[in-house]
């Protein structure tokens, strides 16, 4: 068993393809190891576009903080419509057309370049809410998540602020439930992790996206392992890939009706199959030796 020490351990769960079982695995993993460890455990739901780990962990949320980014506001009486702001913006969030300067808040990343470059000092920055951070506890597990406002397109600032907000908790172990995909929100979620659990399903789609997600892990130099969910007979391409890439298969979850029924009722994997708890504890010990 891993000894309590000063080196915090961050384990992220990602997949590439959506709906492979990231949250099922991440929450069951947390619930399985919490009684087996002496360290403090934080569960971080970084899937801010559709956070759902609370459905399985049922935390009491006790604290909340809005997430704001600073967006430009143009004072038309000072603006000379020189167009410098539009030129410097990398995201086309500000445009000068005729004698009007238009701001498109949903494209703005809040970098502040337009405000800095404006020769007429016609731009000031105003805060705009894009979501909320929440934290609390689920039994012994510390829990935090970000929730993006409906209609907002940018998850990264919320994930970044979420990670910053929970840093003072100084958890010894953090389990991160990442969003699906392989784009910026995923990179922001798993960045700085010590180990990445890639949840996949034995289908061409699941396998295709697993390879993409694994490439992200390699680029970020995060060691990874695979959990095959809904396994229904061997999928040889997936097995071969893991072998070739030295990607350990940490666990196989069978494709069974009673699991699907249990998940649909909001039960986690270890409530449905209590014997899996020991497997998750095993994975945890495997990870601690892999990241040493």
């Amino acid at each position, binding site marked *: 068993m891993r000894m309590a020490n000063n080196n915090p351990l961050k384990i992220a769960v990602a997949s590439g393809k959506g709906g492979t079982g990231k949250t099922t695995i991440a929450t069951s993993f947390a619930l399985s190891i919490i009684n087996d460890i002496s360290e403090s455990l934080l569960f971080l739901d970084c899937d801010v576009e559709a956070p759902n780990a609370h459905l399985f962990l049922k935390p009491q949320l006790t604290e909340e903080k809005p997430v704001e980014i600073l967006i430009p506001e143009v004072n038309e009486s000072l603006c000379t419509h020189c167009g410098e702001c*539009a030129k410097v913006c990398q*995201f*086309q*969030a500000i*445009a*000068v*057309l*005729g004698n*009007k300067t*238009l701001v*498109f808040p949903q*494209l703005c990343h809040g970098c502040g370049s337009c405000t800095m470059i404006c020769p007429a000092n016609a731009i000031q920055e105003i805060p705009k809410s894009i979501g909320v951070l929440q934290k609390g506890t689920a039994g012994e597990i510390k829990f935090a998540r970000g929730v993006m406002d409906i209609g907002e397109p940018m998850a990264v600032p919320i994930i970044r602020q979420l990670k910053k907000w929970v840093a003072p908790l100084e958890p010894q172990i953090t389990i991160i439930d990442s969003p699906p995909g392989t784009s910026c929100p995923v990179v922001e979620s798993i960045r700085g992790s010590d180990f990445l659990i890639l949840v996949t399903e034995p289908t061409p789609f699941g396998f295709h996206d697993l390879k993409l997600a694994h490439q992200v892990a390699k680029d970020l130099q995060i060691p990874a392992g695979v959990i095959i969910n809904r396994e229904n007979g061997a999928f040889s391409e997936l097995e071969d890939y893991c072998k070739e890439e030295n990607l350990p298969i940490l666990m196989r979850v069978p494709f069974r009706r009673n699991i699907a029924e249990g998940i649909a009722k909001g039960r986690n994997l270890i409530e449905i199959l209590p014997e899996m708890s020991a497997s998750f504890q095993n994975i945890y010990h495997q990870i601690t030796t892999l990241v040493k």
Partner: protein
Amino acid sequence: MKIALTTTAPNLEAQLDPRFGRCAYVLIVDSETLEFKAHPNPALNSSGGAGIRMAQFVSDLKPDAVISGDFGPNAASALQSAHLPMYLFGDSQSVKDVIERFKSGKLTKV
């Protein structure tokens, strides 16, 4: 009149491009003489805000009207601010066809 029209290639024989923000080229065509200049879309490969970038680009070319297959909400509000009238080419088949229909007032105005 100077017309801005989205196409898939930089010439008068080109197929029309139904997308405004992600078109391949924009032609600035003189509706009387059919003299034209083709400009590649500077926003074609941008990850977001292509419609706005194109609206800015087209408005700097100072046409009298813009014609495309459709306009996204951001592009439309940007072109509106530039006081540029927008038209849809509908089922027009060629650049010349679009210009003819435009001159005879048969295109739908946005």
